[in-house]
C-alpha cells in the first residue's frame, strides 16, 4: 500500500475547486470506497480533498420554498437520525438503510454514495488476483473481460441512493471553476463504466436538493447477503399525484454503469388501473430494458430475474401504499 496521499481540508468552495484542479486529486467523503480501493492499488490519487470544513457541504437545511438540501459531506447516519427527513422521504431512508452496515453508514457520506466508483468482479480484486490479467479499460488497457465485444467499460454503479434520488426528482448543485449549476440526478452519469460521472475535472457536488412535495415511493434491493452486500440490482419507484395525472419515475440501479429509467414500464402503468396483470407485465418489461453482463456476483440470467422480481414486489408495495393514502392506482 502506498502511503503518500495528501489529505486536505479546505474551508471554502473556491479552495475545493482549486485543489481539485491539481492533477491526481479527488474528493474524499467517508473513505469507505476510496480507502479499500487504495489498499488494493485501484486508487492512486495524490491528494484527497475533504469537504467537512465547507459549511454548505456539511449541512442539512430547509429553504424558504420548502426544499430540503443535504450537503454532500453529510454522513448517511446523520440523514437517518435527522428529525424530519426520514419521515418526509421514506424512500430515501429505505435506500440509505440498505447501504452496507451500521459502521459503514456511520462513516460514509451521501455525496460519496452518489459518486461511488463503478465496480466489476474482474477489477475489484486484490493485486495478486489481477496479476494474471492484462489491464481492462478501467485499468488503462483496451479490453473488457465482462463484455469482450464491448468498446467501453461496463463496470456497475452499485450506489443505492442514486436510484432513490433520481426517483425523487432530486437536483444536484455542481461547482466548477467558473460557476455553479444545477443538474438532474440522472444527468450525473455517463453510462461509461470507466468515466462514469459527467463531472469535468475540477467539478464537484456540493449539495443535493429534494423536491418540496415528497412523492410516494418505495425502494427495494436484491443482494447475496442481506447484511452487507452491494446490490445485484436495486429499484426506486415514486409517484407524485397531480390533479389530472400523476408523474411516475421508475429507476433501476446496479445493472449498468449508471441508473436506468424504465420508461416503457412507466408508460404501461400510466395507461390503466394497476391490476395484477398490469403489474406483472410492467415488471416483465425490465427484461428487455436492461442488458447486464457477467460482472456481478450473480450471473446475467439471475440478475434479470431478480430485477423482474423486485420490480414486481416494489410495485405491489407501492400499490398498497397508494391505497392507504387514497391515491388512485
Amino acid at each position, binding site marked *: 500500500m502506498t*502511503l*503518500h*496521499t*495528501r*489529505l486536505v481540508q479546505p474551508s471554502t468552495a473556491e479552495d475545493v475547486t482549486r485543489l481539485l484542479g491539481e492533477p491526481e486529486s479527488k474528493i*474524499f467523503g*467517508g*473513505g*469507505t470506497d476510496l*480507502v*479499500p480501493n*487504495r*489498499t*488494493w492499488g485501484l486508487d492512486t490519487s495524490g491528494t*484527497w480533498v*475533504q469537504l467537512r470544513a465547507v459549511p454548505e457541504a456539511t449541512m442539512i437545511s430547509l429553504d424558504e420554498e420548502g426544499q430540503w438540501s443535504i450537503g454532500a459531506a453529510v454522513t448517511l*447516519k446523520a440523514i437517518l437520525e435527522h428529525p424530519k427527513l426520514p419521515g418526509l422521504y421514506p424512500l430515501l431512508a429505505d435506500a440509505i438503510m440498505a447501504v*452496507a*452496515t*451500521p*459502521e*459503514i453508514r*456511520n*462513516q460514509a457520506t451521501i455525496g460519496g454514495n452518489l459518486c461511488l466508483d463503478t465496480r466489476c468482479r474482474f477489477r475489484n480484486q486484490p493485486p495478486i488476483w489481477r496479476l494474471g490479467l492484462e489491464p481492462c479499460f478501467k485499468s488503462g488497457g483496451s479490453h473488457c473481460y465482462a463484455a469482450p465485444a464491448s468498446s467501453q467499460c461496463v463496470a456497475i454503479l452499485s450506489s443505492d441512493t442514486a436510484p432513490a434520488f433520481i426517483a425523487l426528482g432530486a437536483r444536484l448543485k455542481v461547482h466548477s471553476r467558473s460557476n455553479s449549476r444545477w443538474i438532474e440526478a440522472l444527468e450525473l452519469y455517463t453510462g461509461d463504466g470507466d468515466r462514469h460521472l459527467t463531472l469535468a475535472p475540477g467539478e464537484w457536488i456540493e449539495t443535493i436538493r429534494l423536491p418540496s412535495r415528497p412523492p410516494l415511493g418505495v425502494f427495494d434491493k436484491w443482494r447475496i447477503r442481506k*447484511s*452487507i452486500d452491494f446490490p445485484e440490482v436495486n429499484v426506486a419507484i415514486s409517484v407524485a399525484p397531480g390533479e389530472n395525472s400523476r408523474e411516475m419515475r421508475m429507476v433501476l440501479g446496479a445493472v449498468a454503469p449508471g441508473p436506468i429509467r424504465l420508461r416503457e414500464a412507466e408508460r404501461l402503468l400510466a395507461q390503466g388501473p394497476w391490476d395484477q396483470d398490469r403489474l406483472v407485465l410492467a415488471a416483465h418489461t425490465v427484461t428487455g430494458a436492461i442488458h447486464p453482463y457477467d460482472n456481478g456476483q450473480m450471473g446475467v440470467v439471475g440478475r434479470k430475474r431478480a430485477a423482474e422480481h423486485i420490480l414486481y414486489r416494489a410495485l405491489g408495495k407501492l400499490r398498497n401504499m397508494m391505497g392507504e393514502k387514497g391515491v388512485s392506482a
Partner: protein
Amino acid sequence: MSEGFVELTVNGAPQALWAQESATLLQVLREILGLTGTKNGCETGHCGACTVWIDDVPRLACLTPVGSVAGSRITTVEGLGAWWEESHPSSHYHPVQTAFVEFGAVQCGFCTPGMLMAAAALLRDEPLPTEQEILERLAGHLCRCTGYEQIVRAIRQAALTEVKEL
C-alpha cells in the same frame, strides 16, 4: 504535506504520533501504538474486526485515514473496560466482555474485539435491545466459528445485567 504529527486521544491518553496522513487508523493503532486488540481482518470494510469508537461512534479503523480523525477521541477494545469503569467503579470489565466469557461467545476470538465494540455501543444507545436490533447492529461483523447464537445471547444477557444495575 502527506506526513506529520497527528494528535489523538486513545483510550483516554493524549498521543502525538508521526504518521502518514493516509495511513489507516488500524495501522497506527497496531503498528505504532502496539494496540493489537483491534484486529486486521479484511482491510476492505467487510468483516468488522477492526471496529473502534471514534468520538464514541463505532467505525472501521481499516477504512479511516488517520489524518481524517486528527484531534478525535479513539476508544479501542483495550479501553472498553476502563470506559465502563468510569461510570461503574466496581467493575473492571464491560458487561458484554463478562457475558462473552460466560456464554462461550468466543472461539478463535478474531472477531471478538469488533463484536464487543459494536455491542457496547448498541447497549449505550439502546439499553434493552431486541434480538432483531442486535442482529441489525452486528450486520457488519463476520464470525466464522460460533454461528452467532452465543454472541446474541451474551449481548442479551449483558443488557439484562446492565438494566438490573440501573
